[in-house]
């Protein structure tokens, strides 16, 4: 394999690697480690400019409970879940159906429709901003969780369809044909044959979309105004305005906001990476 496995190299190289790797990791993660440390610092550290050393006092409970008690952070997080989970479900449902149609059937406009989804997936979403905002206003969905989720569903459908279609297309065609010969209707083929087989793709996508949506900031800014529906990214930004120079609170808030996708990433790492690469390397 490439590069040469480290086990096959000389002793000093091996040692260099073994020592260098954790060091590199440390440097790489320094920003994140710093946030983690700062989130447990006391005011004293901050006043003394101790931003980068070890905390002199560990105020884990104080800082984190301060974050939850004095701000609507918990509410923001709830909003994020309320936006993210329906989006994942909605986008995947639509994408499974569309991917099935595009992956299994040969019809004239197949490629055109497919390209519509692929192309749409790549547009700079700023161009959608004004019309989508107007549309949400007209539908009475502006500044509501439903409005944000609906948009995310629609937009993510592009990517998910692209992904699902490629995945379904790679399933052996014979499976569908065999089911057809066995007497399955098209709906039955969808539910009994294709859906069970795309479970890995669904898993991969849901993890991926979860992080995408959870981390979305732009649309939260465009479609949400009030605290009542603001997801955590936008919320963090407004808290940042409130906590000027209170880095320990900003950090604690950031950590809390980052936690769900990070946990999901670690729990579902395999799926996550599969999602990133499977859909992608097909491009």
């Amino acid at each position: 394999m490439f590069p040469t496995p480290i086990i096959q190299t000389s002793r000093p190289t091996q040692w260099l690697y073994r020592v260098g790797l954790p060091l590199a990791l440390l440097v790489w993660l320094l920003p994140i480690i710093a946030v983690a440390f700062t989130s447990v610092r006391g005011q004293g550290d901050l006043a003394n400019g101790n931003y980068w050393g070890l905390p002199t006092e560990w105020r884990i409970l104080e800082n984190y409970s301060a974050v939850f008690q004095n701000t609507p952070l918990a509410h923001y997080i709830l909003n994020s879940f309320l936006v993210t989970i329906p989006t994942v479900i909605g986008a995947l449902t639509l994408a499974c159906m569309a991917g099935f149609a595009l992956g299994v059937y040969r019809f004239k406009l197949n490629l055109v429709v497919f390209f519509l989804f692929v192309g749409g997936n790549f547009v700079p979403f700023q161009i959608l901003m004004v019309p989508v905002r107007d549309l949400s206003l007209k539908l009475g969905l502006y500044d509501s969780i439903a409005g944000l989720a609906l948009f995310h569903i629609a937009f993510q459908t592009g990517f998910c369809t692209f992904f699902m279609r490629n995945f379904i297309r790679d399933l052996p065609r014979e499976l569908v044909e065999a089911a057809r010969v066995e007497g399955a209707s098209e709906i039955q083929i969808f539910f009994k044959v294709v859906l069970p087989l795309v479970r890995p793709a669904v898993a991969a996508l849901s993890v991926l979309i979860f992080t995408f949506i959870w981390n979305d900031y732009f649309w939260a800014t465009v479609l949400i105004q009030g605290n009542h529906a603001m997801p955590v990214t936008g919320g963090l930004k407004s808290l940042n305005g409130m906590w000027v120079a209170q880095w320990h609170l900003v950090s604690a808030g950031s950590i809390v906001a980052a936690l769900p996708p990070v946990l999901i990433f670690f729990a579902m790492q395999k799926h996550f990476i599969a999602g990133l690469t499977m859909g992608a390397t097909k491009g």
Partner: protein
Amino acid sequence: MARIQLEKVFKAYGDNPPVIRDVSLDIGTNEFCVFVGPSGCGKSTLLRMVAGLETINGGTLRIGGQPMNEVAPAQRGVAMVFQSYALFPHMTVFENMAFGLRLSKVAEPQIQKRVGDAARILQLEPFLQRLPKALSGGQRQRVAIGRAIVRQPGVFLFDEPLSNLDAALRVQTRFEIAKIHRDFGQASTIYVTHDQVEAMTLADRIVLLNSGPAVARDGSVAQFGAPLDLYHHPVNQFVAGFIGSPKMNFFAATLHSAGPELATVQLPTGETLQARVNAQALPAGAPITVGLRPEDAEVGTATQHVLRNVQWQERLGESTYLYLDSGITSDPWVVKAPGNTFARAGERVALSMPAQHLHVFDAQGLSMPRTIASHDLSLSVPASAMTPSTAASA
């Protein structure tokens, strides 16, 4: 109820030249029909048209007498076994086999029974609760067959069902398929393969398909007949070359004279040979191609023979292949000699080319009729061997 009739069936993908042209076949109830032909000739296409997985662009398909062109696959009463097995990977063996029955709302006890029976026949009982991925290739193949059997269809369709198996398993499964066909009295079978041995050993009748320009000229069917018919009486040079392994040796010659039973041909090297064919349709001096199967040639002077140099030999133990300089083109003549034969490169040997084994083709590749009766070519086990006798001693 499961006779399959094709009438002038036609198929072209999009604007491409037709893949299938002018195919008319009548496959009887309980007949085992094998489609062979070079890769890409349309075997799978034709089979899939019968299954209903591919639309028919022209002509009529009847199954059991009913026109089927527009009928959905599930309603045709056919079951199909795919080259890739196409087992549903998320269902157990049992569920795979019961899938079609459940869809057609067969009662559960009935399903249990039918699947159980099939599993017994196919020795799949220990695996019923496993997923396909926990099975070996051969077992998967049997599940695929089982899924076809349980629906008790009128027609079995197989698309190269053995090509993913290794040699030993292939032989064994071939056997099983033949047995199943024999056991299911009513069903007809269509079986696609590109392996001649399978075709020869399984088929009641073989359909050999043309490919390339020959399709436009002669239609898709090159020859439709019993296996040994194709072996002994190929209608043209393509069939002669396709059936038999190693391939028949072909060489250019001219027709010297032709009688009703015997024709005399002259090789470019000057030698003349006699062939038991009726070539009276051709004028003397016509350019022809002569064919001789490697296994029909013999080293020695037993019959009419020519002398040739050995280029190379391959000794397999069981037999030895000699590659002789034909003296005509750079392609050597291949001769299958007994295993104990040994020849050095450059040695000159006599090659016996019996008249009754020579094939003659005209310039268009059409066969001249051979003037030997079929029974000359196909003999029963010698009578002597059938006299009862006790264990022999040396």
